[in-house]
């Protein structure tokens, strides 16, 4: 395979698409499928045939506005339809070429305007199971270019230049990590794609895997070439059956087209990928636990160092990156590291995908440039909090992150500034809270999550999360004293300082950040036995008669 052949495939796809007057792209992501998007697609197809219209009815990946689904996009006009049903299929077909049927059109304006799509560039535009459609949108040019024009060190150099940092949460510079694995002693090496995505409410990675699996496969193949690996694993949680099936067919297609297997693109480079399905423990997203899980052991973290880059899977040098990290790689190779680095802040480059949810009008999967302010996301893209409420805070980073208060709404989204604000980038959950949210209760929610998800290996996390949760529950119920609050603060530092892996080390963050900005709410619960947001049920001491 070379660039010319890629172009031929792309031309063939374009020729095929050109045969139609219209196209209806029906989202077949998990959210829309749950509302029978497959049946809707079939109904639209049947209706078009009956009406004798020349319509291409296609399955596509996520259109981003999941809460309003089932969704479809009409071409060539570009209207986005929401709330579709089988019953309205005929209406959709007859409206083609004109204005969409009443009540079905999405108002896009700001939702789309502020976004920059790199990772999601194909999402909702191509059939995730057709590799040729991916190729039509410049897919696999990055890999072909890497294999035929660049040495592995040059590939690493491109990634370093791009400034790409790990999207799995920690933000470790990707080029640096690739370089370490590339420099590790030669021999068997592995590439792992971390698709465990355990943060409650996060579904960025799932969406990428479901909507554009080839992008991740291409990213991994480029990485494997750069670091000298011949075998890859994609670790996906079992709760993502659609992602697994799209990946399975994606891998088959990629092999068929010769992007996986031996002598890829006629070069000496060999690489193949296997899917591993995780049982859905949050901690299995931690890289060493994930590796143990792939090895068939209990998924619990191990000590680092040694880092996976020197001794990972089966003790061999292993590159492990997040789904979104890999998804950024093909365009970097295609367009160059410098192109990528144009978007973003000084230290945080490119875009970030967020799952925007909570007390917000537009619940959506969005991709924004680094450096955008939280206000632009919440008020602009998200459309603000519901009528009659006031915005209070936004939670990022999931159970490892924190709450950023309204006063800090103008900080920019970057790894550094979020940490400075007491939160973190995390993998991309963004939960908006308004005056009806109790911050102690929010802290308790995340602590409960950490407590039940703690693997139990190390004492501080295993026992500390239980005790922190108990104390938070006590505060919420109005049973706590100020001594309990002091104990909670002490515990936060013990658990943060002494835990073995990131789960325990960051578990206190939601407590610490809410204490930092909303300490008064804690004190209200304790001293006045009152929940300002009216969320917590205060248990009044039974006074014996």
């Amino acid at each position, binding site marked *: 395979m070379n660039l010319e052949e890629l172009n031929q495939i792309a031309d063939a796809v374009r020729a095929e698409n050109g045969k139609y007057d219209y196209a209806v792209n029906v989202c077949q992501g998990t959210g829309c499928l749950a509302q029978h998007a497959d049946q809707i697609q079939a109904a639209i197809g049947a209706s078009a045939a009956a009406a004798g219209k020349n319509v291409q009815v296609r399955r596509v990946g996520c259109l981003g506005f999941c809460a309003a689904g089932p969704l479809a996009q009409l071409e060539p006009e570009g209207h986005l339809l929401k709330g579709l049903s089988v019953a309205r299929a005929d209406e959709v077909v007859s409206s083609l070429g004109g204005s969409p049927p009443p009540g079905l059109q999405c108002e896009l304006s700001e939702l789309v305007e502020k976004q920059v799509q790199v990772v999601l560039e194909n999402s909702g535009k191509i059939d995730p199971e057709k590799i040729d459609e991916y190729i039509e949108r410049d897919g696999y040019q990055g890999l072909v270019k890497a294999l035929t024009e660049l040495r592995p060190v040059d590939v690493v150099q491109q990634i370093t230049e791009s400034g790409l940092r790990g999207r799995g949460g920690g933000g470790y510079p990707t080029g640096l990590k690739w370089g370490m694995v590339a420099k590790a002693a030669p021999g068997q090496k592995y590439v792992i794609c971390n698709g465990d995505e355990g943060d409650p409410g996060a579904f960025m990675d799932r969406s990428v895997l479901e909507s554009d699996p080839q992008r991740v496969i291409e990213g991994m193949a480029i990485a494997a070439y750069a670091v000298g690996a011949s075998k890859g694993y994609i670790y996906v949680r079992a709760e993502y059956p659609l992602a697994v099936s799209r990946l399975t067919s994606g891998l088959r297609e990629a092999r068929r087209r010769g992007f996986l297997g031996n002598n890829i693109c006629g070069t000496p480079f060999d690489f193949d990928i296997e899917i591993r399905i995780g049982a859905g423990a949050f901690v299995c997203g931690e890289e060493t636990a994930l590796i143990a899980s792939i090895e068939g052991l209990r998924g619990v973290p191990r000590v680092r160092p040694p880092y996976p880059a020197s001794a990972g899977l089966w003790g061999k040098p292993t590159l492990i990156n997040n789904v979104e990290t890999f998804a950024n790689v093909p365009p970097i190779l295609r367009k160059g590291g410098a192109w990528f680095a144009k978007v973003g802040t000084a230290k945080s480059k490119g875009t970030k995908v967020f799952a925007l949810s909570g007390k917000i009008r537009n619940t959506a999967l969005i991709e924004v440039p680094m450096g955008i302010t939280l206000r632009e996301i919440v008020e602009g893209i998200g459309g603000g909090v519901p009528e009659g409420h006031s915005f209070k805070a936004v939670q990022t980073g999931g159970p490892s992150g924190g709450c950023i208060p309204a006063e800090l709404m103008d900080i920019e989204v970057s790894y550094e500034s979020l940490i400075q604000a007491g939160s973190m980038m995390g993998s991309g959950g963004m939960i908006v809270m308004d005056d009806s949210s109790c911050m102690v209760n929010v802290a308790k929610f995340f602590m409960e999550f950490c407590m039940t*998800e703690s693997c139990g290996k190390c004492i501080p996390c295993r026992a500390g999360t239980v005790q922190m949760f*108990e104390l938070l529950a006590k505060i919420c119920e109005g049973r706590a004293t100020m001594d309990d609050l002091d104990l909670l603060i002490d515990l936060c530092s013990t658990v943060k*300082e002494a835990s073995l892996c990131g789960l325990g080390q960051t578990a206190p963050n939601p407590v610490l950040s809410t204490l930092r900005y909303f300490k008064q709410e804690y004190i209200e619960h304790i001293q006045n036995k009152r929940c300002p947001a009216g969320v917590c049920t205060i248990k009044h001491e039974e006074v014996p008669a």
Partner: protein
Amino acid sequence: MADVTITVDGKKITAPAGALLIDVCRKAGIEIPAFCYYPGLSLQAACRMCVVRQEKVPKLQTACTTTVAEGQVFFTETDEIKQARKATLQLLLGNHPLDCPVCDAGGECELQDMTFKYGAGESLYAEAKNHRDEQQWSPAVFYDRPRCILCYRCVRMCGEGMDVWALGVQNRGSSAVIAPNAGNELHCEECGMCIDVCPVGALTSGSYRYKTRPWEMNHVATVCAHCGDGCKVTLGVRQSSEGAKIIRADNRDKSGMNGDFLCAKGRFGFDFVDSEKRLAKPMIRNAQGKLETATWEQAIRVAAEKLSAVKSASGGEAIGVIGSNFATNEEAYLLQKFARTVLGTNNIDHARTADYARFAKALAGKPGRSAGIQDAAWAPAILLVGGDPTEEHPLLAWNLRTNARLSKARIYIANTQSIRLERQAKATLKVDDYAKLGEMLAGKGNAFAEAVKGEEKLLVILNGDVQGAALDALLKWGLDREGVQFALLGGAVNSRGAADMGLLPDSLPGYVPVNEPGAFANEYANAPKKPGMALHEMLQKKLGALIVQGTDPLGELGVDGGSLKDTFVVVLGAFESATTAVANVVLPASTLYEKTGTITNNFGDVQLAQKAADRANVKPDFEIIVRLAGAMGVDVRTLVPFGKHGLTADLGQSRGAQAGEADRHAVWLAANNLEPKLSPFDPMALLDEIERLVAGYKLDRLNLFAGNPAKAEPGFVPVSALAGSGTIQRATAGLFTTPGLSQYSTQLAELAEHESPAKAVAAD
């Protein structure tokens, strides 16, 4: 590895680069608390007790996972660190039952010790003590969930250490528990290693639970009474109305050559001392043919008179003597000396389990060719021929596994069957006859042989069933090469000692031929020079008298007692048996845990066995033999040169359970070249003679008395000829049985029943 210098708490320490900080500190006398760290097992970094501060590193570091490099600076005892440890302990205690007063580990608990040290006694978190009932996993192992601190030592010991993998972790977070992988029951080797490594009282031993408190026992270090590997075992002994009773056996101070290890037999098989079959009183067969109890004086007199009568009527050749694999070296030596010099017979043998005579002959005059059992843990390459060490020689198997795991030893296995150790082997070879192996190794073209020959240093371990020409060929092959060492595995605790001490019809101690006695010519003035009868012959030849010491030849060999109808049989033994059933005089003897003496293991390591238990009315074989000789009118000084010359220590035979003290006493005496008072019943009185006459038994006494192995390399005198007659039985041992004492252990019987194939679900 190159040495580096680091600074810990202001002190400069030099250590090999890459060593673990926790080890480096401990060696330098700096205490680092640890629950999850266990030397030799994989690193967990789970308990977070070992945290230290490293200069210029933002977070506290775990000493158990930090490797040392030049110039590092650490602090281990600052207030910050103490506070962190205290906080961790408080979290642990928040979910701990604090039932120390009734806990088996009370007084031996690492959690208790640390709580005391870091002052974390007050429980901050009174809320969440989730109670669960104690579980019984097997007759040997009980688990008390609330006490478990989840250090995973047990899981790793069972998996990595034992290669059994019977334990695992279930659930996660604070509901995590340790559980048998097979379900509610443990089906495994029942070695109890998990109990041993448990730092708290979460895993307890079925045999010891709630019996006593650690500080109410005396602890006596001795040698395990079962297989021929010779583990050091510590017996916990409590005084009782009947004497001193053994409550438990364990590996308390880990100072023996077995290091961390004890198998099920060593740990649970101590209760043979209390077997219902123990002989309690001397007995004499009366005129009606019934055994009736007698006093010691009567029984000894009857035996002595009859032996004297047979000797004067038919000569020494009419008397046979059968010794055992379970007596001390001193007893074995004394028995054959008594036979040769007092009875005047060479009809002496024991149930041989390996051809040590042939082995000694081959190795004679070639120092450095015989290995110690610890070499199996260090040697870079091992060729294991025959046997199944996992069951028959558990310590050897442990050493081999440890060696393969930690030092990447290359293990080559040649066997007629498939054995578990193959999992650690680099190469295996199925053979149908060991006789062809020597030739095959010498030949060309076989990949296994080539790999073995590629090894510069090789330890060849031969099981006892490699005999005769097969043994000769392998020994010759190895002796022709440089860097090859050998060991030959016998069946029971002192199989090697029995042979070394001359319980053989044709060899004197040290495998000196009876017909060319050399130095023994003067020492054993009247000893016969013609080789005597071997074991089977003695049982068939209708001798006038037969002395059987510490063994049951009729039962073990399945010989019909009828053949001894006209023979006067004297049994010195601890248990009722097929042989006592036909005996004329029965003299109740002490078992190995009730006496003192030296024991030689399969590899020639000599160790001190010390008296732990005490039992009314029984006597050590040593004393019985001396008394018999005395009653026959012999000046016992000629047998046991006590009192005057060259006697350098008292083994504490008479001090019984206070032997710990005697131990120190003896070390002190030896160090100061002093002579204690001795009696003819003190086996120590013979040690000088053994050292003087038995080649290879020049022992390092300081080491011996300190409880360490003192190597013996017998056979280094030129041995001109050996008749080499006599059968060698294949001694088949199992996980819970070694021929001999294990059959009298109720606890081992229960474990065997629990693990019997009918009960055990497929545990693999």
